[in-house]
């Protein structure tokens, strides 16, 4: 008999082992090459190619030109306003979102489901509609604006107005990130804390909050990312005064209307870079918290 006639399992397995790349974990799921191929093609078409175009476009101005655009007082102020307020709004949403998620998961009361559905509304509403509604509410003669004006607060047409709009659109992201984790949180862990002598405050602060911190940070990242790019709801309430209440996305639109495409993409590229950097930082922080409980 020849070697070929006797199927030798070892010989047949060995070449396969050798071929297997260290990038690919053996998996019981078939179709890895196909799935990875589609993933890369799709992400490439939808995300990477457009963003690459954005990053390439400004350089027709030359390095000095790009620096010139970005160091322009008006542009710098708009970038600072956009990122600063987005971060503050996301930060404000963290405790508020936690409280709402807590109420929705921990208590049973009539209308809970309705309230739960309400959380998603800022997400579902066309942003321009939200902007008009918020502006009508907070304008100096609006139902809330009047009261704010009485205590000397200018809401609409001020950074505070932008902040309110960004809190509004960011809220669902925070609530929806925390809610499932809070729901899944093992009740026995809290009971264990109680039997060990923890007060209600210690139980929440030392057991519950750490458990949901990773989810809170990822919700915060999402709210932040959304706020940075928000346009529709903000431009109505902002008043759009250059140097004061002009957000970066609006400035991009203005540059586009002046057919200054390169400058517009320079601002866009700067936003992209900062947003990407911030998200990476948030991700690293989130992973640090998450790792404690898992690895």
């Amino acid at each position, binding site marked *: 008999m020849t070697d070929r006639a006797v199927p030798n399992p070892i010989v047949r397995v060995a070449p396969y082992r050798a071929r297997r790349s260290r990038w690919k974990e053996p998996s019981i799921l078939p179709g890895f090459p196909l799935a990875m191929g589609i993933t890369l093609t799709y992400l490439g078409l939808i995300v990477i190619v457009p963003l690459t175009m954005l990053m390439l476009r400004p350089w027709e101005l030359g390095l000095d030109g790009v620096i010139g655009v970005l160091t322009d007082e008006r542009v710098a102020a708009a970038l600072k306003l956009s990122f600063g307020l987005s971060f503050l709004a996301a930060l404000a949403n963290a405790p508020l979102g936690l409280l709402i998620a807590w109420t929705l998961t921990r208590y049973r009361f009539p209308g809970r489901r309705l309230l739960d559905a309400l959380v998603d509304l800022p997400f579902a509403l066309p942003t321009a509609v939200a902007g008009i509604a918020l502006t009508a509410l907070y304008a100096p003669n609006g139902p809330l604006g009047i009261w704010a004006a009485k205590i000397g607060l200018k809401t609409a047409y001020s950074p505070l107005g932008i902040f309110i709009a960004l809190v509004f659109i960011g809220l669902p992201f925070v609530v929806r990130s925390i809610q499932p984790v809070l729901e899944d949180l*093992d009740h*026995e*862990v809290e*009971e*264990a*804390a*109680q*039997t*060990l*002598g*923890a*007060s209600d405050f*210690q139980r929440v602060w*030392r*057991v519950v909050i*750490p*458990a949901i*911190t990773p989810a809170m940070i990822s919700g915060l990242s999402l709210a932040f990312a959304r706020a940075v790019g928000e346009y529709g709801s903000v431009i109505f309430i902002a008043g759009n005064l250059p140097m004061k209440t002009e957000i970066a996305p609006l400035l991009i639109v203005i540059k586009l209307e002046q057919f200054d495409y390169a400058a517009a993409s320079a601002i866009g590229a700067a936003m992209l870079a900062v947003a990407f950097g911030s998200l990476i930082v948030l991700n690293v922080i989130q992973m640090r*918290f998450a790792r*404690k*409980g*898992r*690895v």
Partner: protein
Amino acid sequence: MAGSTDLALEIRGISKAYGRFPALKNVSLQAKEKEFLALLGPSGSGKTTLLRVLAGLEHPDEGEVRFGGEDFLALPVRRRKVGMVFQHYALFRHMTVAQNIAFGLTVRKASERPSKSEITDRVADLLSLVQLDDLGKRYPSQLSGGQRQRVALARALAIEPKMLLLDEPFGALDAQVRRELRRWLRELHDRAGVTTVFVTHDQEEALDLADRVAILSEGELIQLGAPNAVYEAPATPFVFDFLGAACRMPGTVVGDRLTIGDWETQASKGAPQGVVEVFFRPDEVAFAPADGAGLAAEIRAVAQRGPDVRIEAMVNGQLLELQAHGPTLPIGVGEGLSVRIRPMRPQVYAAS
């Protein structure tokens, strides 16, 4: 045993209902200082509810719980100083093993809190007590199930509890680890000298571990006693059935004579009169030749599994599954043969 002076735990007339479903019905029992008490019952028997009442995690509708003479129900959970161990460990995932164990000490008020170095020492002591000396810096997710449960136990012991409450602590572990931890837990209890209440649905575990076993069914306490006493004289057919395999046959008691099928024997003292149900363990049976004394039985099948032999026998028109130890099985017991069998310790209950 000792008198009522060293009673630690007194439970009187505890009732608790969830909506219309009664979880506990008028349960009363006591535990002595340093006693190891097992609450044994099938799921839904109320044993966990009773444990949670002791911990303060549930409040009973009626009844009284005293510990060392103190009204326990008036104390909130965190002031009861009971160490509770849960079936699924309930460790704090974001804390290291050492931080988990120290938790009960670090949440104390500043005036009662031990110093940092005292806490560190205490954690080290507890780690070595539960034989996890080098694992203080690990996170719970890096430990095996058995290790996690030992951390949970160390965490509960850290507060120097007046009472240790264990809710099916080995329920999520595999059989091997279970048996090891069981022996170890008993030793730990004897060394630590803490009154312990242990909930389980595993009768072997309860009989092996506890000083006394309380058997619950449908919210009621059915029987309370030392493991041997309970095993040898189950109070009801339910208890008999729950504590191990059972054979049951109808019989009658007249005077002090018990008749089962064609066999008449001495009835136990205080046996109910008239039609009765006779229970016996399938391995507590003596075999005799067909012309001897006992119940006429026809052997249908004999199957040997390791040292154990399973015998199917037709007795009085009823197929019984008996068990015997292979090497001690009489030669006359074989398929198709007629023999007589004699239950060695029949328990007689009034027919329901």
